[in-house]
């Protein structure tokens, strides 16, 4: 099957690259000290965008329709494969939570495994009021606490609105993991740097969809342009009552949920 492509406006050739990269190169060019220039040049090398890609003409977000998620965990598996995420269950860039709300008693929440919810369907004794799945992912917050707290600026927001980590520059202090209200980050057990969802940035710059969106069989994840009026995401936002997670923290998430239950946090 051919990869679905992002419905994006045409890009301007020879356009400006990332803000950070530009800043870093300027720093180096301005004749910074020998010590300063070395690591900075190194850091900037990790951010080479695909030729002709113009980050200024995009602004990405994701929509999640809770009512459409069937808990198959394809997104989790695809993400791990695509991004070389460690297989252990405690390292995830995206995960799916199962909520079981009984007629009486406490709400049961768990993260489903890689086999999907069908492999671990709980008994429904005592009656179930509602049950549903909630896909979770980095919210790529517009005012991201992780970006704010990173002491060296290794975590940054791209011009197209994606929060990334520069693995060549991260010192592994883990302050960003503490600052993320959504539990979306982890420390990679081998590289010892902070890791998180990139919206599959390497695919975005080629005009492809993130892996989790690509494989979702029920269309629960809608990815696209936030600023374009006619994008699938814009339609999703227009025709649904939208919520974001932990709105009170004012992180301005760019992952938008439709049909979200109040139990979800």
């Amino acid at each position, binding site marked *: 099957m051919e990869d679905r492509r992002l419905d994006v406006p045409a890009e301007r050739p020879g356009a400006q690259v990332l803000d950070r990269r530009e800043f870093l190169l300027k720093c180096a060019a301005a004749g910074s000290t020998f010590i300063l220039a070395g690591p900075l040049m190194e850091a900037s090398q990790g951010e080479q965008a695909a030729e002709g890609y113009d980050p200024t003409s995009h602004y990405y977000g994701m929509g999640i329709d809770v009512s459409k998620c069937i808990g198959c965990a394809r997104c989790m598996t695809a993400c791990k494969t695509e991004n070389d995420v460690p297989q252990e269950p405690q390292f995830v860039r995206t995960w799916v939570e199962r909520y079981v709300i009984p007629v009486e008693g406490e709400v049961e929440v768990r993260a489903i495994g890689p086999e999907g919810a069908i492999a671990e369907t709980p008994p429904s004794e005592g009656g179930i009021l509602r049950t549903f799945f909630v896909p979770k992912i980095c919210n790529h917050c517009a005012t991201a606490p992780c970006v704010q707290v*990173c002491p060296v600026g290794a975590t940054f927001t791209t011009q197209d609105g994606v929060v990334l980590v520069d693995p060549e520059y991260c010192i592994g202090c*883990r302050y960003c993991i503490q600052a993320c209200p959504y539990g979306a980050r982890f420390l990679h057990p081998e590289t010892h740097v902070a890791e998180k969802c990139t919206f599959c940035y390497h695919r975005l710059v080629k005009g492809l969809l993130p892996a989790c969106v690509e494989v979702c069989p029920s269309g629960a994840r809608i990815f696209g342009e936030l600023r374009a009026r006619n994008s699938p995401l814009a339609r999703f936002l227009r025709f649904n009552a939208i919520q974001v997670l932990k709105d009170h923290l004012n992180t301005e998430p760019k992952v938008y949920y439709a049909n979200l239950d109040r139990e979800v946090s």
Partner: protein
Amino acid sequence: MSGYIYPNELELQWGLLVVIYPYVTGLVAGAFILASLERVFRVRAIEPTYRLALLTALAFLLVAPLPLQAHLGHPERSFAIFLTPNLRSAMAMFGFVYAWYLAVVLLLEIWFDYRKDLVLWAQQSRGLKKAFYYALTLGATDLSPRAIRFDNVAGRLVTFIGIPSAFLLHGYVGFIFGSVKANPWWSSVLIPIVFLFSAMVSGIALVLLLYVFTSLVRSKPVNMVCLDTLASFLLYALILDFSLEALDFIHRLYEAEESIHILGELVSSRLFLSLVVLQVLLGTLVPMVLLTLLSPAFHHRAVLPATEELRRMVYFGSAILIQVGIFSTRWNVVIGGQLFSKSLRGLTVYKLDMFGLEGLFVGIGLLLLPLVILYVLIRILPPWTDETPVTAEAPAVSS
């Protein structure tokens, strides 16, 4: 593990090393503030501990960055904090706050205070030792009354700058935690203030312990006026610290935000021993009662008149309990803040390793290292002033 935690929360990010960091910087700030009591506020009674307090602050400050460095995923990149700091990050300021405090405050103050002695020691010594002390004078060997007067004025000025700097150093450490809005256990405007006062408590208690201990080792009598005054200040700081912590606790209970249930569960289960028993009961209330009864903190008289020996023992015991309490405080903040899920639906556990960089033995080593450094510093720069010991029959605060 109980309830639901996010998958990525299975691993705790900050362990024992990050507990040690605020504990050690607290001791630095506290010891310095104690020293400044003598210097700026002219509390003459505690003069015997002035230099000891300064050297203690220096010894612990030298160790303070080690646990942080050791816990980094890439320690070799830590210099990036100095070279390309993210100016919006609280943590990025660490290097600057640290360098300011070490170089501008502590080293300068010690140098001005010791300069005259350094010159004298250089004059009295021979060979390498002479060269060493001469090097420490930085060539400033003028012992004229005018030069000595300048030392005093400059030293006092540095202390004036030093007090807000000490507040900055430890208040800043508190801010690193208090400003994390994602974590309801940490996120509190009171945390930097609570950190500061607990720092004073731990610093005064440490200098008290060291003063009694070194007097014992040197077979010198303990200056009881000094010790009574230390105990009194320790009690004042302890009362302030406890009041602030109680305010924070009551405020949280009364506001009862959405996190109150999980935090209640946290305190009553995972943190019961370290918070209720060690921090509050043994680390605060017991020493508070003991010091209230025996120290001349109020009305210049103790509630229960006691012999010098008993007072020494009780002060010493209280100071040890206080150290245990403050270490537990740091533990409860750092580890406690990671034992509940940010989903507010579950609790996790922290398993302390014995070996390895984050292990118990490295932790103990890092806590003993400042004492070794202090020993060396004391050998190089003897801080003693007790050639003519003073004792007081009736406990009294003199200032």
